[in-house]
């Protein structure tokens, strides 16, 4: 639970962004305002086309915003992608070591750290495999290890489980919660599964499409670890499902 004395990792105030499609300008994000306390877990839910991924790119500075202010109180952001986005020319180990090498760490040291991270996500034995030889779940674990390797202070996850089968996703979710607790990093996750969002989050941002904007921000105050079968849990899921149903 974030408390008042906590630092704020990210603040957006009235942020808007456009897509330039040839001559046409399409407003994709409109007046987005929210803040993410450091160390908290915040989910963004909403229908496809609501600009959730665009929001992540804007936050990371990969795409410019046209108006509004973004306060970024983080220095080492990392991201986990829906399609893994591993570098196919590098082995699992070198994928994980990539960020460290770019930050100027020596090769042997970077590989040592990377190996530790791979072991942490349960893939120590696959360090020399290329991404092509890994399953979807394994690839996403490498993606997670690559992100954790640079000791991020903000971890952005763009629908990290949506390409995985349920069993694989469940085990990865359990690991993610463990990692979040032990690292104490701020996590901002795009999600399309409401029960997942309720299970993980301190706060859920509900987005609406055309143009993408915030419909509501719902705090989840359930005690952790969360019992996904409790009446309270179902109540929260119901509430959120109602909120999103009204918009889709």
């Amino acid at each position, binding site marked *: 639970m974030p408390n008042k004395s906590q630092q704020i990792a990210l603040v957006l105030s009235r942020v808007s962004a456009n897509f330039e499609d040839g001559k046409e300008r399409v407003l994709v994000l409109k007046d987005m305002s929210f803040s993410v306390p450091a160390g908290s877990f915040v989910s963004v839910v909403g229908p496809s086309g609501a600009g959730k991924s665009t929001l992540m790119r804007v936050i990371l500075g990969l795409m410019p915003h046209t108006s509004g202010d973004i306060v970024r109180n983080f220095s080492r952001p990392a991201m986990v992608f829906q399609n893994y986005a591993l*570098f196919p020319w590098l082995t699992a180990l070198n994928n994980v070591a990539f960020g460290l090498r770019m930050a100027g760490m020596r090769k042997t040291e970077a590989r040592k750290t990377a190996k530790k991270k791979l072991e942490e996500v349960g893939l120590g034995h696959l360090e020399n495999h290329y991404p092509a030889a890994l399953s979807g779940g394994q690839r996403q674990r490498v993606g997670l290890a690559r992100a954790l390797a640079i000791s991020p202070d903000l971890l952005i996850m763009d629908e990290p489980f949506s390409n995985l089968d349920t069993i694989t996703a469940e085990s990865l979710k359990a690991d993610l919660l463990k990692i979040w607790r032990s690292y104490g990093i701020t996590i901002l996750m795009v999600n399309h599964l409401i029960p997942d969002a309720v299970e993980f989050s301190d706060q859920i941002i509900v987005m609406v499409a055309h143009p993408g904007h915030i419909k509501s921000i719902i705090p989840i105050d359930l005690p952790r670890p969360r019992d996904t079968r409790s009446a309270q849990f179902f109540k929260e899921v119901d509430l959120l499902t109602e909120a999103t149903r009204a918009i889709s």
Partner: protein
Amino acid sequence: MIRSITHPQTRAWHRAHLLRHRRMWLIMAGVIGAVLLLTFSGYFGEVAWLTLCDAVLRTTYRLAIAYSIALVLGALMALVVGWSPFSDILFPFFDILQNLPSFALIPFFIYFFGFTSNMIILFAVSSIIWPILFAILTAIKSAHKDLSDAATIFGAKGWRRIPYYLAPLSFPAMLTGSIVGIAIGWEAVIGAEIITNVAGFGDFIKEAGASGISQALVAGTLVILIIVFVINRLVWAPLLTESSKRYAE
């Protein structure tokens, strides 16, 4: 005429390519057998082997230099264009340039550089560069946005983007572009030698063939066939195997 290479580097494509190489071995064994048979039967008695070797070496040397220049220049141009905000403007411009029949340009090259070896090399560069440039450009432009974002987020920014992201990303494309480019390069170098009479393989077979099919012409053709095959086996096949292993989807 050269067409831009847009086909993706799929596993099936690589597999088909490798299979073709295996069949090539069989054919080449036949060719080498024929050469040996012809040699032992005294068919090549009249052939000036030293002149032939000299001619082949000159041609191969020109091709190697031309390919190296085309690779560096093509890759650089692809990086600059692929990276710059002007790529959409420059792309059609290059498309027109590459569609110029290359031999139509040979009078210009002769005008500026004379009947020299350097002229042939530069002329060959002007042919080899296009498939390489377009292959790399296409690879950079068609890369998944997530991959490019990942490279940025994990620190491959500024100039480091070239060795750590763009170069490995376009490696398979560079490979196919090079294979096509070198095939065109043989044509360009030998053709230019035939046209300009500058000493080389083209000039050699022109002389040899002037009076009809001669032993020297047959010997020359077989030698060039073997060289092309050896380069394929020793350079491109292993690189393709490596590329198909790493870049498979």
